[in-house]
């Protein structure tokens, strides 16, 4: 049970996300085969693998440095749509966190909001475009609601993870309007968005890190 999000939590979050991307590589690629180009699993596994490598070479002691390293590594090792998007997410999370080694609930929420705003700035996604944003947005709403109700960080993160998973599942009936799934028109309906699925992993990792 934690009231602060520490750099140890941050590390464990990133590490947990990396493990999940690796374990779920085939699943993410499977989703991307149906409505994309069959590389989302490889992209995320490669990127988060590179992040692990970068963080083990250099151990940043402040949250801004840590997340900047994560973001820069993703930007420079992933490519595709997910590279700039997840990269920008972490860069913005870091910028807003600042040169500190921990955040309270409000601080974490503000950082995550800045990250999601980064994704929207880059990708212009709106709700129900069938993108990772559709898992991000409800996750943050749930996190904020839990904190507002006085929940601790563990509870808030676990609510966020649940909401992200629900958001992921809710992309299934949508027709894509962003990213390469949009080229499929109505044929994109009936499939879960791969980026929303990786975002659900992201919040699941956060919940575990804070549990």
């Amino acid at each position, binding site marked *: 049970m934690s009231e602060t999000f520490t750099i140890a939590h941050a590390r464990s979050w990133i590490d947990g996300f990396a493990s999940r991307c690796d374990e779920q590589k085939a699943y993410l*690629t499977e989703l991307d085969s149906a409505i994309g*180009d*069959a590389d989302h699993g490889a992209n995320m596994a490669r990127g988060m693998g590179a992040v692990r490598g970068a963080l083990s070479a250099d151990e940043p002691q402040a949250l801004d440095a840590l997340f900047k390293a994560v973001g820069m590594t993703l930007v420079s090792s*992933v490519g595709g*749509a997910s590279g*700039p998007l997840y990269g920008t997410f972490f860069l913005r999370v870091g910028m807003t966190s600042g040169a500190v080694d921990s955040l309270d609930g409000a601080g974490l929420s503000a950082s995550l909001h800045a990250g999601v705003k980064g994704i929207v700035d880059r990708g212009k996604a709106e709700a129900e475009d069938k993108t990772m944003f559709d898992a991000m947005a409800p996750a943050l709403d749930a996190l904020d609601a839990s904190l507002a109700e006085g929940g601790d960080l563990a509870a808030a993160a676990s609510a966020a993870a649940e909401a992200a998973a629900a958001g992921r599942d809710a992309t299934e009936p949508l027709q894509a309007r*962003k990213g*390469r799934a949009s*080229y499929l028109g109505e*044929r994109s309906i009936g499939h879960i968005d791969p980026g929303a699925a990786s975002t659900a992993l992201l919040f699941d990792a956060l919940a575990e890190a804070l549990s």
Partner: protein
Amino acid sequence: MKKLINSPETVLADALTGIEAADPSVRVDHVNRVIYRAAPKVDGKVALVSGGGSGHEPLHGGFVGYGMLDAACAGEVFTSPTPDQMQAATKEVDRGAGVLHIVKNYTGDVMNFEMAAELAAAESGVEVATVVTADDVAVQDSLYTAGRRGVGVTVLLEKIVGAAAEEGRDLAAVKAIADKVAANGRSMGMALTSCTVPAAGKPTFDLPEDQMEIGIGIHGEPGRHREPLASAKDIAAQLVEPILADADFTGDPAIVMLNGMGGSPLIELYLMYGEVAALLEKAGVSVARTLVGNYITSLDMAGCSVTVLKADDEILSLWDAPVETAGLRWGR
């Protein structure tokens, strides 16, 4: 999965090694995964940087050389390259006259090139202009899509704009001709089979023996719709009609490309071109130049695409100008 590879993880690195060994006129930066001309351009000329996911060969690496690109950034298979790669290439090829980025309209490519242009301008002061190709008529360009995909016209654009840069035109002029080509090309593609992404290890989609996909892009994604397998004549009509419905190609000379997706043999591509040429003639399109072969591919996918570019005297003379690359070569 049956492929001539060592492992899915090393496909790109190994292919770059082979390209470098095969072609003395290019040089490969293996760290940044950029293919450069071995003999760089002279000072004062605009340089062209393109790039994209791998798996579309000869695009783009095979188009590096005199009269076309100065550098091609190679992403992983079907994954756009990263801003670092593009920024390194941009800095390397700039000859003081600025750099044109040639970008196919995909969310990933556009975002990565955007970040690269921001970085290049901020860090090294290189002037960057960008052209985005978006010629795939299978996709409606609307608020409800990521816009049309950039496909076949990219090949024609790299040739034509490469010639303009070689002539010594300035960045604004080079960008203007690039925009003109991008605006006047249309493409439509189809698949008989899926392709297999090495890292995925199996075909991206299943396509029964009696079905085909119409309106595919170049990433092994399913097309706009699935149709019963048809004759070459019929397929030609399904590709040509949406192109002609989208723009008026009469009255000007046209450059036409019949492109293979990688797994269809040349005999079939020629056969298809015969059908396409007949349809274009019937529609009053006067074909001035033709390209038939594998130029912008989707790994081992069987299928083809048609690109029609409304040209004019300027474009035709840039088209005819000398080019010396692995993928296109004439005039020297």
